[in-house]
């Protein structure tokens, strides 16, 4: 009997659906890739469901309150996101995996592992919070050099939010500088996570369509046996 390498891997129920997730720092292009993947899968007749980070409607009001009033600490930030995540898993992810659908998640537990640890939360503790998360069929990490990602974000969207920029950590009084330092820390954490959870690394500096081709090729073998709706026009 082989011992599981990490507690998170303990739960892999035999559900007929598939769970594909994308991870990466802001500006890595992962959301674009997931949207393109979703369109392709739907055109192929697969039942597809989208699940986004930070989107549970019941927790949203509390998250908004915490952010607006700036009362979130690394600890409550972490717990609130774990609450949100579990609500989504219970309502949006698990039922659809049982139903045999393809669930596509834009960010997954690894976002919490990277961000919360970048905020100073214990890496062991944050992993234990997510111990019962379903292990994805495949998890893709869109690896991007920091400067490339920063350029994509900072050229197009100048208004960075307080927590998004990591201003709560008081790394730098300037919002853009703080964001840079915070993203660098997150990137460092992601690089630790990639080998730990065996994420599939995608080179996010290549052309969008090249990346999309690689993504489709990677998931294709996992689609065998899934139920499709043939009469899609």
């Amino acid at each position, binding site marked *: 009997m082989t011992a599981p390498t990490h507690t998170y891997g303990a739960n892999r129920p035999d559900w007929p659906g598939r769970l594909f997730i994308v991870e990466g720092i802001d500006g890595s292009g992962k959301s674009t890739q997931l949207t393109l993947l979703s369109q392709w899968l739907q055109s192929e007749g697969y039942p597809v469901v989208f699940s986004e980070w930070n989107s*549970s409607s*019941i*927790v949203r*009001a*509390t998250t908004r*309150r*915490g952010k607006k*009033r700036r*009362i*979130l*600490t*690394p*600890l*409550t930030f972490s*717990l*609130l996101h*774990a*609450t*949100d995540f*579990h*609500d989504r*898993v*219970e*309502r949006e992810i698990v039922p659809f995996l049982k139903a045999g659908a393809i669930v596509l998640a834009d960010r997954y537990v690894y976002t919490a592992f990277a961000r919360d640890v970048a*905020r*100073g*939360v*214990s890496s*062991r*503790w944050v992993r*234990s*919070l997510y*111990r*019962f998360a379903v292990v994805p069929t495949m998890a893709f990490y869109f690896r991007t050099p920091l400067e490339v990602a920063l350029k994509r974000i900072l050229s197009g969207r100048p208004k960075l939010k307080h927590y998004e920029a990591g201003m709560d950590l008081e790394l730098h009084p300037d919002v853009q500088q703080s964001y840079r330092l915070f993203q660098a820390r997150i990137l460092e954490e992601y690089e630790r996570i990639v080998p730990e959870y065996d994420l599939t690394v995608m080179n996010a500096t290549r052309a969008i369509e090249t990346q999309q081709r690689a993504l489709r090729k990677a998931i294709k073998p996992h689609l065998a046996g899934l139920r499709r709706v043939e009469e899609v026009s």
Partner: protein
Amino acid sequence: MSTPETSLTRQFEFYGESIPGLEPGDLTGWLIVIEGTDGVGRTTHVDHLRSVLEREGYAVAETGLTRSDLAAEGIRRAKEGNTLGSNAYNLFYATDFADRLERQILPALRAGFVMLTDRYIYSLLARAIVRGADADWIKSVYSFALRPDAVYYLRIEVPDLVPRVIMNGGFDYWESGMDLPMGADIYDSFVNYQARVIEELDELSREYGFETLDATRPVEETAHDLAERVLGLLRSKPHKDEDAMATGG
């Protein structure tokens, strides 16, 4: 090296993980927890204890479940619709607790107050475990909690609890475990649910070393007993104040 003064320097500690950015060494107050199941009379006892302590010159602060600035309203709304799954609920309660720990309990302890806490992590653990949460998991979630100076467990059993609950307005949906439910009607569910909660609290009592008080006695008798115990504790574990620091150094 052991001098009487060293006992004055109390040091708080965490059950497991520490809170980012917190140095427990600068906490000088007392963290006193009153535990017990729903309807046992905790609120009455906390009120009484507070007035006794204030009469003795102690500054007292209070907190209790779902009284956080951050998550109280969100939890209330989620409960109204009964819309969250059980692990999401457990983590929402943990968020509420963490916010109160960081923004109510720690500032009070830093300021040298006696922090009276109407239930702490133990009731939250018991409720989660009764609802099917993995015990090791939920304990690890709460491992950032501070170890209190003392936990006073107001212990009662279901037959004594029932008339009190009826006198105080009847069976509450959540306090009867009707979200599960554990019986054909609210009474059956209350009996089964509360029996399980008490069983878990008893188990946690052994694990975390509660001081158990028999709460089936008349209220004044239990209140007197509780006040004596708390005053005894405060006198035996005094403040880490400037005088003590000076003589101890």
